[in-house]
């Protein structure tokens, strides 16, 4: 629960409904009085405030501009004005002369709880008027963050939101844990103001964002129906105000992130690596590669030297000298020097708002520039925004807006340290003694696709050089991406009757994305391709690919249109207040994409050459069989359409009792489904009671208390599935007969249904001891049924993976938001606690495989098994190492065993060790805020608890074959007795892959992943009021943020960061910014 702050109350909602004066039973003549009701702090008009008179017998409400007009039957009378979030005010009217027209200023009520405005994207409402569970991340919290995208700024700011890293290393956001068992549709629905946002979320400039509302339970989210199953995040942009002089604000922010912490990689040191290579060489491990006369796979320079030495082309002394010089290298220093640099981001933004009586305007512009950590990579973003709104005549309001985002990125780098791509499957790392430049600064090439013994002499000077150096490559190629994204919107609100308003909205999004990749003639990519497609006979080179550069052009366009017609109604009688809305919505998203390649490209003359895509040409030196020239031509396109009807009603009695309900039906154009089958009705109900608003409530310690209970359903839809067999066409480039062809896209599945999520929520809102402690606690249970799961079915179906409805998931949790004021007053110390407990269990999953190998080591992906959490960590039971050879010992059929093949292929799921969930069961953040006058400091500590992680370790198969070493090598078993203090198996040749597989997935490598991280430390200081006045500024703030990536506590003893893929900590970052202006 956030504190009530006057600044935020500025933004107290404009209910989507504006009301004409509504007076019941007016008759005869009386005393006509009129006035305006405004906020005492900001002077902003309060629309929809309730005015009772004649002893609460009659009621009126204020219109959009806060004005009201009443006819009193007798004098004197007392007006009672109430408005959510404000202290109820009485105003005595004794005579008409004084009462004819006056302004009433209402002051915010500290006692009221949720007097903050939230938005569901369909309506804006006061939190008090809904029984739903919402999290509001306000402007102040968002401004603490420094990222260029808005979603990252939510980390540690809302108790229900969890950021987790996935198997691929990308960060994924979830609300209240899982609702679905698929990664692809497990992400929340993102709404920008009123409609789902189709563009890339990084297009949204955080400076344009006012606040973010997270819709958590059924009542909050089910208005979004079939796409709300994973929760909804509503991003609300800043709005302009009527009757306000020109205000402006400039915000500049600079962020610097250090180079990646390469030295954290648990690598094997060069001398030891070389030792292993010598040992393997002696065993003949490299013979197959060295004797290979076709694909000529890459071997390391050390192996090349050993080979030369063995064949008598190199003396033993020369060999040892060379090896010693290699042993002194560390590839990481080379990468830090020549590939990486500290990343820098500069963000600039200007905001302007101005408003008259009938028209108001907001304009903003931003320009961000990013120097990325890989040398040669840059990105920039320009945003511009203009919003107009007007109220030309009474009862009519309109708005129009346009947002433009232009993103460019220029990439010339060849990738980072763990993205080195050596031919022959050696993806990932390079040998630790690799050099990019020697001591004299000369660039040193390394072999990328073929071994040195081949590339040194290939072509006898007639071919292009076949050497590779990632630094030199930067000047030979460029990848330029441009994205233009336009969002235009219009709305019109029209008061049809004093209880009914119509609202028409339209929003269009258009994006044009282009990526041009060009490789110059000197780039390795071109040289390699050209060489491969060359033939030499009699000293003549035949090139089957035109000499020159290569250009790939990719385009992707999207057009989304949203239409919504909605009726908002409100009726108030006696102690009752009924609000409702009903509407219909249509959405259409049309997209297309294309890709093609030009050979023989010359950037100066823009000339291109023809190429023969049909013939399979022999490859130079038979590096492979004949191959066609790679063809990049492809087209794609499609249309997604949705139709929805929805309604929502809220009934209040005496402001204490609240009832909510909503319903929605969605339909979409699923392939092979007739329209009447494609819909699904979803609904929710909720009741709430706020005893603290009752007249009898006298408890001084508990100044506010409310309780809410909701239940309802929402769904998850995947338009790519179909109940019928569907096929998809592919271009001829993938065919050996040069024909366009089709493949089965989805096999027939007549029983396909939409996923449904039923959620129950029990919430309590409270404020104690004069707001010294305030917050809310929500208990929830989500039951997801008919979950669509990509299962690997019986192989006899011929499908490696099909997505079918199977399984039920139960997620229970507790959401706690607490604000505690430890020291009130001029020096203020408060702590925001955001804590979340979450327990997921798969209740029913008929397809749970029996084999253990379907579960072990797969904890980074959803790994369903009946009766277990979705991300379960499983291991083979281990008995450590045996003493004779340092082999790991497992269990097979109840007995200790070293038959790894049988352990891996026959261990059943029941015989595995289950550790727990790989996702935290308990997570949250604790933010301490200290402020004194204009100074404030806050520290956010992130906590994740109750989950397990699998440590990486040495796998000899990848160590030998792919150069992926691990420093556990040093802890390996080497002689009898070692088994007493290590669990790392001995190094053996030949490698038994099953032994590696068993060890890496055995229980010895699993540890608790609990940790506490100092997420960031923020400071800000406002210049003194006197100076502000002189400068005519309303604010002038210098602020900064330090993100050390520092772990305050971790449960594992291997000193790895549980959050990152390689266990390498994220580099530290610091930011400093200045925000000033009159806004």
């Amino acid at each position: 629960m956030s504190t009530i702050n006057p600044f935020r109350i500025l933004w107290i909602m404009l209910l989507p409904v504006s009301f004409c004066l509504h007076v019941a039973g007016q008759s005869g003549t009386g005393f006509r009085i009129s006035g305006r009701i405004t906020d005492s702090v900001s002077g902003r008009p309060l629309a929809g405030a309730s005015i009772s008179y004649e002893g609460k017998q009659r009621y009126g409400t204020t219109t959009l501009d806060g004005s009201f007009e009443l006819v009193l039957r007798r004098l004197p009378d007392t007006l009672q004005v109430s408005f959510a979030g404000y202290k109820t005010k009485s105003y005595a009217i004794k005579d008409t002369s004084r009462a004819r027209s006056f302004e009433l200023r209402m002051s915010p009520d500290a006692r009221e709880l949720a007097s903050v405005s939230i938005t569901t994207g369909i309506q804006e409402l006061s939190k008090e008027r809904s029984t739903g569970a919402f999290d509001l991340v306000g402007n102040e919290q968002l401004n603490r963050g420094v990222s260029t995208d808005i979603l990252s700024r939510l980390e540690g700011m809302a108790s229900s939101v969890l950021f987790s890293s996935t198997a691929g290393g990308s960060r994924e956001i979830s609300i209240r844990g899982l609702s679905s068992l698929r990664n692809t549709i497990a992400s929340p629905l993102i709404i920008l103001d009123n409609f789902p946002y189709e563009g890339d979320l990084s297009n949204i400039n955080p400076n344009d964002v006012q606040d973010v509302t997270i819709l958590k339970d059924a009542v909050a989210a089910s208005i979004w129906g079939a796409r709300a199953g994973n929760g909804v995040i509503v991003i609300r942009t800043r709005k302009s105000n009527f009757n306000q002089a020109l205000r402006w604000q400039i915000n500049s922010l600079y962020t610097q992130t250090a180079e990646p912490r390469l030295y954290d990689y648990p690598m094997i040191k060069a001398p030891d690596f070389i030792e292993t290579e010598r040992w393997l060489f002696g065993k003949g491990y490299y013979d197959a590669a060295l004797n290979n006369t076709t694909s000529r796979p890459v071997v390391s320079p050390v192996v090349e030297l050993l080979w030369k030495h063995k064949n008598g082309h190199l003396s033993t002394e020369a060999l040892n000298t060379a090896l010693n010089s290699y042993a002194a290298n560390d590839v990481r220093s080379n990468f830090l020097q020549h590939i990486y640099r500290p990343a820098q981001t500069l963000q600039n933004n200007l905001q302007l708002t101005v408003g008259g009586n009938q028209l108001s305007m907001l304009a903003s512009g931003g320009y961000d520039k990013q120097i990325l950590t890989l040398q040669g990579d840059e990105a920039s973003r320009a945003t511009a925004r203009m919003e107009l709104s007007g109220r030309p005549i009474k009862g009519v309001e309109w708005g129009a807006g346009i947002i433009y985002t232009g993103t460019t990125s220029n990439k010339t780098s060849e990738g980072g340290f763990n993205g080195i791509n050596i031919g022959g499957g050696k993806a990932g790392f390079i040998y630790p003694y690799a050099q990019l430049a020697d001591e004299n600064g000369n660039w040193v090439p390394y072999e990328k696709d073929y071994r040195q013994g081949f590339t040194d002499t290939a072509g006898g000077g007639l071919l292009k050089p076949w050497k590779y150096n990632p630094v030199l490559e930067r000047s030979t190629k460029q990848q330029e991406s441009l994205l233009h994204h336009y969002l235009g919107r219009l709305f019109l609100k029209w008061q049809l009757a004093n209880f009914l308003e119509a609202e028409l909205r339209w929003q269009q999004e258009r994006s044009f994305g282009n990526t041009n990749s060009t490789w110059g003639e000197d780039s390795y990519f071109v040289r390699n391709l050209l060489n491969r497609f060359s033939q030499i006979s009699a000293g003549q080179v035949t090139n089957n690919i035109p000499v020159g550069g290569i250009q790939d052009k990719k385009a992707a366009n999207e057009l989304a249109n949203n239409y919504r017609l909605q009726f908002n109604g409100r009726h108030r009688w006696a102690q009752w207040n009924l609000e409702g809305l009903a509407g219909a919505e249509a959405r259409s998203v049309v997209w297309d994409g294309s890709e093609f390649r030009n050979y023989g490209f010359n950037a100066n003359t823009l000339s291109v050459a023809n190429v023969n895509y049909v013939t399979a040409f022999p490859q130079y030196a038979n590096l492979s069989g004949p191959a066609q020239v790679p063809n990049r031509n492809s087209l794609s396109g499609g249309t997604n359409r949705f139709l929805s009807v929805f309604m929502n009603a809220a009934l209040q009695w005496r402001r204490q009792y609240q009832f909510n309900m909503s319903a929605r039906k969605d339909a979409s154009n699923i392939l092979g489904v007739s329209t009447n089958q494609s819909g699904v009705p979803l609904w929710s109900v909720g009741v709430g009671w706020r005893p603290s608003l009752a007249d009898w409530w006298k408890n001084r310690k508990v100044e506010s208390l409310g309780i809410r209970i909701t239940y309802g359903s929402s769904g998850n839809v995947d338009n790519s599935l179909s109940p019928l067999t569907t096929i998809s066409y592919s271009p001829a480039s993938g065919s050996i007969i040069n024909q366009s062809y089709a493949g089965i896209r989805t096999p027939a599945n007549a029983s396909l249904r939409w996923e449904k999520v039923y959620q129950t929520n029990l919430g309590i809102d409270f404020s104690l001891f004069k707001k010294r402690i305030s917050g809310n606690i929500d208990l929830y249970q989500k039951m997801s049924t008919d979950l669509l799961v990509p299962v690997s079915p019986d192989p006899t179906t011929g499908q490696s993976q099909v997505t079918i409805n199977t399984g039920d998931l139960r997620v229970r949790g507790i959401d706690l938001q607490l604000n505690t004021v430890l020291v009130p007053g001029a020096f203020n110390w408060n702590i925001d606690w955001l804590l979340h407990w979450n327990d997921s269990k798969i209740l029913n999953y008929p397809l749970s495989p029996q084999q253990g190998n379907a579960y072990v080591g797969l904890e980074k992906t959803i790994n369903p098994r009946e009766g277990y959490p979705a991300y379960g960590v499983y291991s083979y039971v281990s008995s450590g190492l045996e003493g004779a050879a340092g082999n790991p010992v497992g269990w097979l059929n109840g007995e200790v065993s070293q038959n790894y093949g049988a352990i891996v292929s026959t261990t059943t799921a029941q015989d595995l060790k289950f550790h727990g969930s790989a996702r935290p069961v308990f997570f949250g953040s604790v933010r301490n805020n200290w402020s004194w006058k204009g100074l404030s400091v806050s520290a956010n500590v992130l906590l994740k608890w109750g989950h397990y992680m699998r440590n990486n370790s040495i796998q000899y198969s990848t160590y030998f074959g792919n150069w992926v070493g691990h420093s556990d090598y040093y802890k390996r078993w080497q002689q009898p007795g070692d088994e007493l203090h290590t669990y790392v198996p001995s190094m053996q040749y030949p490698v038994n892959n099953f032994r590696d597989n068993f060890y890496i997935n055995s229980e010895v490598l699993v540890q608790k992943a609990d940790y506490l991280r100092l997420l960031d430390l923020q400071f800000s200081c406002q210049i003194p009021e006197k100076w502000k006045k002189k400068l005519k500024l309303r604010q002038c703030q210098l602020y900064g943020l330090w993100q050390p990536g520092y772990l305050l506590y971790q449960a594992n003893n291997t000193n790895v960061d549980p959050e990152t893929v390689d266990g390498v900590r994220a580099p530290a970052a610091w930011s400093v910014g200045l925000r000033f202006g009159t806004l």
Partner: protein
Amino acid sequence: MKWTNKLFILLLLSFVTGCAKFLDVRPDRTATVPSTLQDGQALLDNTTIVSTNWMWLPHMYSDELFVTNSGYNSSSNETPKLNYIWNDNADNNAQWMSSYRRVNLANTVLETLDRAGINQNNQMLWDDVKGQALFLRAFSYYKLAQMFSPPYRNGDPDLPFGLPLLQTASITEAYQRSSLKETYDQIISDASQAAALLSPTPAFKTRAGKAAAFGLLARTHLLIGNYADAASNAEKVLAIQFELMDYNQINPSAAVPFQRFNKEVIYHSAMSTGLNNSVTRVDSLLYSACAADDLRKQLFFQRQADGYYSFKGNYDGQITGGMFDGITTGEMWLVLAESNAKLGKIDESLAALNKLLVNRWKTGRFVPILERDPILLLARIRFERKLELLFRGIRWSDIRRYNSSGEEKIELKRWLNDQWYRLPFGDHRFTVLIPNKVVEMGGVAQNPR
């Protein structure tokens, strides 16, 4: 306000009636529900599924190849390594699945044809597409049966260890294992129907034509010991396509002497790669037994630095990729020779054998075979089959066939990392285990052990 109400009601009404049409567009323009002959043909032209990635299991199981210690130890793919030593722990899930993927694709095409309907204009095309689908299904079952079902000859006891025979594209249909006879009956029935429907001149060698269907029938009948049917089907093939390449015209120094889709290819298909061809070596005894004047000695074998020979006679025109395992005219001449020898038609047999070999030997050096003793003639034919059909997965079927017909008693053995691995005559492992997952999820009986 009344007219506005009316307007909104009107808007709402038109909105509702427009819904049906609004939702009637395809979400992805490259995707469709297959319903035309073109869709069916496009599925059959998916060369990644239909023409490549066939099972390497028979190749890895047979005695035509071996792998050196270094090659074995430096290979990272465990499944072919285990299969190479006939180890039951190998998980052949992927091999089984990719074969049944073709069955599913064929059944999808057959169901598409039902939707498309026949009329006067499309009859020819309709028949051809149906024939291709039936052939694909039959060929897939044929290859699966060579690994996952015990050897079967006409007249053998009918064991319940045949294949699951799926008739629809539904992925939820329950199935059980058929009997061996049912399996081969299905193959013969599908292939016979296909032979009647298919075009004699397919546009691409990846599409089955009449000759391919007869070729599969000839191969199948030979396998189960119906020599008369084998001979008659081989003749039908050769009546359509009989040409052989004169190996004297082929450059022996080329790293890849043969081209994909060459004139001997009746139906093109290729295996995926088990153990990479850069580490597999040809059986040394076969190499030594190959006569010096036999051009295959130069065209099929490439000496490697380790002193052994790798195979370069791949009819897929590849060195490193998968091996050709389709149907050729060369094979058909051998089927004709063998089945005629079995039937006692020695002259016809010798004619067919000599017709092949004269194109395989150096011009002028080939002395036509005159052997009239059926036993010795058949022994020669077995040798020629091993050589001519090398690295095509056919050798494995032949080993099982010779062992079960009693012609030979072949025991397989491998010397690897200072250890012998053996597959003795009569061992149950001549039939590969059904993948555990299939036994578990499909509820079918496992092969005997």
